[in-house]
């Protein structure tokens, strides 16, 4: 598969029954493309963490995924409150998730670290009051079927 595939998702805020549906759909699509299983796993976790962050922290947002010949790009953009201190937010264990969200199992403060760890390229830009954009790149091996 050499042609480029583009997926667009609109992520609703505060809907925990639907949260993760975009990542699940993305994973289903990836499974049909001949991408190796370990890369599928990493890419889908990256998408899920980003999706959940937009649901919990930003009242939703938009996701665009470009599956190319040599890489997958995941671009997540929201108009939420933004992140005042990105370095702090990137630390394992740092969270501002409220108690009701934590009781659902979120709020380990591991989402952003996971996205960085499981992607090959990670870039986050955020402005308080404006929103947050996360770009992740996952490299694909050459000579895929």
């Amino acid at each position: 598969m050499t042609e480029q595939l583009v997926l667009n998702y609109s992520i609703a805020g505060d809907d925990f029954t639907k949260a993760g549906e975009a990542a699940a759909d993305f994973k289903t699509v990836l499974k049909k493309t001949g991408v190796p299983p370990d890369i599928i796993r990493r890419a889908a976790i990256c998408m899920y963490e980003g999706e959940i962050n937009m649901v919990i922290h930003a009242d939703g947002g938009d996701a665009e995924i470009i599956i190319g010949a040599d890489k997958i790009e995941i671009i997540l953009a929201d108009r939420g409150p933004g992140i005042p201190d990105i370095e702090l937010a990137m630390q394992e264990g740092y969270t501002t998730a409220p108690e009701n969200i934590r009781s659902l199992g979120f709020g380990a403060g591991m989402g952003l670290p996971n996205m960085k760890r499981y992607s090959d390229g990670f870039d986050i830009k955020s402005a308080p009051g404006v929103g947050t954009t996360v770009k992740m790149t996952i490299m694909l091996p050459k000579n895929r079927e």
Partner: protein
Amino acid sequence: MNVKQLAEALKLKTYNAGAQDREVAGCYIGDLLSRVMSRADRGDLWITIMPNINVAAVAVLSEVSCVVLAEDVTPDAELLEKCVKENVALYGSVLSAYALACEINKVI
């Protein structure tokens, strides 16, 4: 040992049989979802006391072989429904996570 054999050996309560033929590679215990996605390995049996729908999503993404709800925790209706839909093997036990892990260590 596969999920079905392990469930029988540990006398687990079956909430959803799901993909029972998968091999159990190891075991991970945890309730914080992002931590599970960080540390659990593909094929692990995941022990948790978190009974909500997000557990199914994380089980699918982290590709654990099955989920065991410890300490007699029962799954929410939404979790059960999602596990059926996504073919996630979901079990329960009255044992604690520690006791379960000790038993698993004996059989796998």
